[in-house]
């Protein structure tokens, strides 16, 4: 399940809803990304249509690689202040290894394939964030 939204999400609610009632689940893993305090605020822009398409493809690829009971990807857009949550990815499976690995895969692929862009609002003005080589390297390990 994927969701793109302006409003915040509740980590407990989202975690509880993951594979709710599925007694085959033995473990679930959740990653939450937040705005670091070094940035006063940022605005997340995205490409409506392509974003949904890419996130659905990322979920499908994770389900193809691991036996997952449920997947959740939530990404916020619009203006976010320091400390606010940006993204949640989560995976549930019968065993922990698939849940851990799928969760790391989901965020690594999201960072280099989903069309979101961060514009940081700094004292000196607005700055579009540069892509990081380390994110590209993190994606390559899943080839």
């Amino acid at each position: 399940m994927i969701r793109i939204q302006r409003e915040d999400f509740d980590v407990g609610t989202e975690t509880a809803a993951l594979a709710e009632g599925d007694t085959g689940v033995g473990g679930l893993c959740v990653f939450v990304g937040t705005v670091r305090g070094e940035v006063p605020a940022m605005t997340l822009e995205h490409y409506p249509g392509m974003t949904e398409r890419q996130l659905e493809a990322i979920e499908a690829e994770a389900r193809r690689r691991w036996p997952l009971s449920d997947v959740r990807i939530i990404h916020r857009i619009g203006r976010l202040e320091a400390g606010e949550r940006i993204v949640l990815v989560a995976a549930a499976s019968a065993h922990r290894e698939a849940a851990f690995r799928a969760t790391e895969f989901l965020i690594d692929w999201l960072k280099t394939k989903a069309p979101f862009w961060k514009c940081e609002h700094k004292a000196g003005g607005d700055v579009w964030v540069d892509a990081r080589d380390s994110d590209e390297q993190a994606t390559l390990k899943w080839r």
Partner: protein
Amino acid sequence: MTVLYFAWVKDKIGKSSETFALPGDVTTVGELAGWLAQQSAAHASAFAEPRLVRAAVNQDHADSDHPVADGDEVAFFPPVTGG
């Protein structure tokens, strides 16, 4: 053809989209970027460093040699920075 721009590519060009008839000799993403770069000083500045501009055709990531046709939705943007 409709072309969409995002993030600093949009800021440099000064608009988020434009629609035009695709010139007959433009057949790939790379040729389209080259043709767009000649349309104005703002376009030239957005496409000045081709390695910094990524593309999508019909909402899928596309390399510079990917074919384009009239009727496609093509987008140009910087490397993505979500998550």
